[in-house]
């Protein structure tokens, strides 16, 4: 779960990581007031949770309060990657004589956290954790003894950071580490950490991504999640505890199991041959529970791109007839329209398929193999059936 930049900075402030004096506003009037109070050039940052936000069209500078108000009027309500901007973070423009990247993430290949620093921005820290470009200085953090000061000094040394800033840099890195660990962050980064003309180190931009698996023990952070600032479908999926990713094709997929869902997606892409593709990735999890099928159908039916739905269930230890009854119950609740291809496999799958075919014949196609299912869905999407 990503935090907004302003939320990450609030969290940083609790760990005494210095950040600019920022405020969040939701109206142009407030933007004027905040900029006027700051009485210096400001930067306005749209707070949306799409990709690596806080860059591009989502950031504007203003020399005075009036300009800040104008920018805010423009920015509030605009869409960034489909999400409406509802909040702006306004901060003073900070001059800097040097910019440092400092970030902590998990390097899964060595099963450790890595702390990385660079004199240039790092585009993608998770990737950089393993790749080793020479411009990035890196230290692995021992899972038990933690981040040592000497390791931070190694970073400072590698960055050629003037020594009078080493103590400051060490404190900030240790606080970032503690903040990250105590927040169950899979990514904690400062980009850039600016060295100001008067010799302070300041976290100009910040990013915290919280491990979804740890949200249960991080109630405070979980409560910070802003579902208004992400796509509606994502928020719905999160609530239903299913995994959903919007793609650009026409075939809505509902699959149990991540690997099988990706495989379904891959096969649609291959056989679709550039003309037809998957509308989404959607994994309802290993079992085949009716409520998750229902939630998945809800999300996909709301997607205007979808022309046909492909439901691919491999029942595992769940009996096929039970799965079929669950699907029928879900369809009954939804009462959605449009063609549906169902591929059902597993123990007693045949009974399940019979049940499905007899119960609900209109627009419903029941098949056995993955190949059949994919090609049938593609044919329906192309209108060639």
């Amino acid at each position, binding site marked *: 779960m990503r935090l907004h930049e302003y939320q990450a900075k609030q969290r940083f402030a609790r760990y005494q990581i210095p950040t600019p004096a920022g405020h969040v506003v939701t109206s142009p009037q407030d933007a004027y007031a905040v900029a006027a109070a700051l009485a210096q050039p400001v930067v306005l940052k749209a707070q949306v949770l799409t990709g690596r936000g806080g860059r591009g069209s989502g950031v504007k500078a203003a020399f005075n309060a009036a300009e800040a108000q104008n920018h805010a009027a423009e920015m509030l309500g605009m869409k960034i990657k489909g999400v409406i901007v509802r909040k702006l973070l306004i901060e003073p423009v900070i001059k800097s004589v040097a910019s440092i990247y400092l970030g902590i993430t998990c390097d899964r*290949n060595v099963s450790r956290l890595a702390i990385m620093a660079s004199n240039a921005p790092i585009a993608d820290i998770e990737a950089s954790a393993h790749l080793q470009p020479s411009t990035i200085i890196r230290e692995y953090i021992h899972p038990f003894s933690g981040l040592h000061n000497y390791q931070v000094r190694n970073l400072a040394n590698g960055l050629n950071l003037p020594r009078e800033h080493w103590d400051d840099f060490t404190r900030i890195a240790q606080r970032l580490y503690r903040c990250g660990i105590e927040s169950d962050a899979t990514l904690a980064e400062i980009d850039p950490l600016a060295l100001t003309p008067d010799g302070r180190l300041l976290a100009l931009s910040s990013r915290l991504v919280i491990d*979804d698996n740890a949200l249960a023990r991080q109630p405070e952070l979980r409560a910070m999640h802003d579902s208004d600032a992400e796509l509606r479908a994502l928020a719905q999926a999160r609530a239903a505890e299913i995994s959903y990713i919007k793609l650009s094709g026409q075939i809505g997929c509902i699959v149990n*199991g*991540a*690997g*099988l869902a990706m495989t379904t997606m891959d096969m649609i892409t291959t056989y679709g041959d550039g003309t037809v593709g998957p509308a989404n990735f959607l994994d309802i999890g290993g079992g085949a529970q009716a409520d998750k099928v229902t939630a998945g159908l809800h999300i996909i039916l709301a997607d205007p791109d979808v022309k046909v739905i492909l439901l691919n269930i491999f029942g*595992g230890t769940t009996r096929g007839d039970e799965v079929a009854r669950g699907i029928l119950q879900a369809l009954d609740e939804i009462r959605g329209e449009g063609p549906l291809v169902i591929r059902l*496999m597993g123990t007693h799958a045949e009974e399940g398929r019979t049940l499905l075919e007899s119960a609900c014949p209109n627009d419903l196609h029941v098949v056995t193999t993955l190949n059949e299912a994919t090609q049938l869905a593609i044919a329906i999407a192309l209108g060639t059936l």
Partner: protein
Amino acid sequence: MGILLDGHDLVLVQGITGREGSFHTLQMIEYGTQVVGGVTPGKGGEWVHGLPVFDTVAAAIEVTGANTSLVCVNAAHATDAIYEAINAGIKLIVCITEGIPVLDMIKLREHLRLTGSRLIGPNSPGLLTPGRAKIGIIPGYIAMPGSVGVVSRSGTLTYEIVYALTYEAIGQTTCVGIGGDPIVGTNFVEVLSMFEDDPQTEQVVLIGEIGGRAEIDAAAFIQAEMTKPVTAFIAGRSAPEGQRMGHAGAIIAGREGSAAEKIEALRAAGVRIAENPEAIPGLLAGDRPNRRV
């Protein structure tokens, strides 16, 4: 006989009194696994499917002599259960729990390095030696005894592929799900190495997916160390960058972890690559009977 299970496995189910734990205990017993008891703190003295329940792993081992454990405990308590199993001397631990925080796994992984215990998972469907025993939740009916080793990061995709093999009458030595999380107790290379050393296993099917470099490491190992043929399928060729595809571990970060990269590395190591799961049986080495079951 297959790998990991050696016929002397006395299995404990941690979380045996739960809905899942109880269900899969029965499935395992029916499949022939020697389940000897279970552990649920606070429920010692109860019985599940005729098996005694203990409060602690130590007590369970003392009474039953268990040496293997299935951890079927929710994410909040799963690492505690695993530490308990390790520190009580359980040698093989299979964890099916999904959703363990990554920082917990980093610590646990380090702890495992310092002990003699092996963990399969977490977020693993477990392992199954057809016709003999299974630990975990892989459905028994999809498999049959034979000479193909299967190792995978997935759950239902594994069932799909094992079923496809069985459908073509191609049996398996052992099916191992190593789990879909970014940090797991046992990786591809370790399982490949066991298959290489296993006299029953004649060839191996590897089922990978996007994220991390486990398949790249596997390719390096196959090239350097393996004599047995390997066929692979990699899920997620069409996955977008930077998105977690269901599995916590399935994410392409920048240039790293894409299916293309992995397929290339495996091909270069002499591995045959299947375009889809149903194509795997046809790609296997040797003259296999092609009859329907």
